[in-house]
């Protein structure tokens, strides 16, 4: 049974303490690739939250009712990546058909998400042990973990995009222009996020 406190703990953990981008190092490629403009950062963030929610619920069901039940959990990696790829494709087709407006907004980000390690990462983390309770993740817990990890990703992405838009105007040494200065910025952000480790619910 899930208690509300456990769900709140998971959410705060996923958004702030173990932020996917800034402390777990997952999803760095889109983080640096799509953070040049605020508008595209928001689009990418929404797409990631959506796919992560779907992926964590689907992979949880497949993992506990098929893989673990029949003792083939070593196939996890292969099955998960296929499920995610298929899911992304399905979401893309469904959006194209039923919600062209949303497709217009998210469409170009969706194919990128298949190889976003954050999505596979959350699916794999959900098969492990919930550090808060010491039990395996339940369905609701893994869904919450998926959504809030996506929110954490979006938060980092939006903060980064906001900073990068200002950074365009800054005077940066020639060798550090472009990506290197962005890495430094990310490092400073990660340092700020380290402060949230003080909010430790886990121990």
């Amino acid at each position, binding site marked *: 049974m899930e208690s509300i406190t456990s769900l709140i703990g998971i959410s705060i953990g996923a958004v702030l303490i173990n932020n996917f981008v800034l402390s777990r190092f997952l999803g760095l490629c889109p983080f640096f690739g799509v953070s040049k403009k605020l508008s595209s950062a928001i689009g990418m963030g929404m797409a990631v939250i959506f796919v992560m929610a779907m992926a964590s619920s689907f992979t949880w069901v497949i993992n506990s009712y098929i893989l673990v039940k029949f003792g083939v959990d070593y196939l996890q990696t*292969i099955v998960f990546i296929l499920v995610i790829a298929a899911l992304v494709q399905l979401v893309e087709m469904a959006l194209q058909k039923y919600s062209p407006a949303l497709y217009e907004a998210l469409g170009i980000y969706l194919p990128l998400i298949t190889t976003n390690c954050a999505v596979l990462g959350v699916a794999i*983390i959900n098969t492990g042990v919930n550090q808060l309770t010491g039990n395996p993740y339940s369905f609701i817990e893994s869904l919450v973990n998926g959504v809030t990890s996506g929110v954490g990703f979006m938060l980092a992405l939006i903060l980064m995009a906001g900073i990068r838009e200002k950074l365009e105007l800054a005077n940066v040494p020639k060798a550090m222009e472009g990506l290197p200065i962005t890495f430094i910025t990310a490092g400073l952000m990660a340092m700020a996020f380290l402060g949230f480790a003080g909010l430790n619910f886990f121990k």
Partner: protein
Amino acid sequence: MLKGELKRGLLTENPIFVLVLGLCPSMATSTSIENGIGMGLAATFVLACSNVIISLVRKVIPDKVRIPCFIVIIATFVTVVQFLMKAYLPALDKQLGIFVPLIVVNCIILGRAEAFASKSNVFQSLIDGVVIGLGFTLALFILSFIRESIGSNKLLGLKFLPGYEPMTIFILAPGGFFTIALVMGLIRHFSNRKRSA
């Protein structure tokens, strides 16, 4: 030819410092030299094997479903690596944690499959996989050397400098970003100077 290829993989097309691919594992696993090299060699193995297989079946796979096919081939080899690591290097497997299965979504591997192995013959693909993999390993070695020596005052687990208080920040998350930024900046600085000279 081999020498030129090696130079391409290690320097001019270094996957991390020049192409800026595969960032997640390179930051997460470069906290110690052991982890960095372990990750680099695991990825090299997957890259070389998947390049060979993809190059063998490149004419059979229909163009439209090639990406899922590539991913399945890559995931198969990643599972092989997971088994091997669990059996022979359990300590390293624990250290690398979820980053072993995450080799599947390492953009270097899919990138080479798409850009090179699906268009070239088997031998060339094998060479390409090995040199790019070694370039990745070299980059990880440089990053982890800097981070381990500054961040925990150790090299390969042994004490490095006596009387030096390690800056723990370098083995935490921010240190990864700082190290890669500084190394990239240095590389750019020297290549700019070379170009203008």
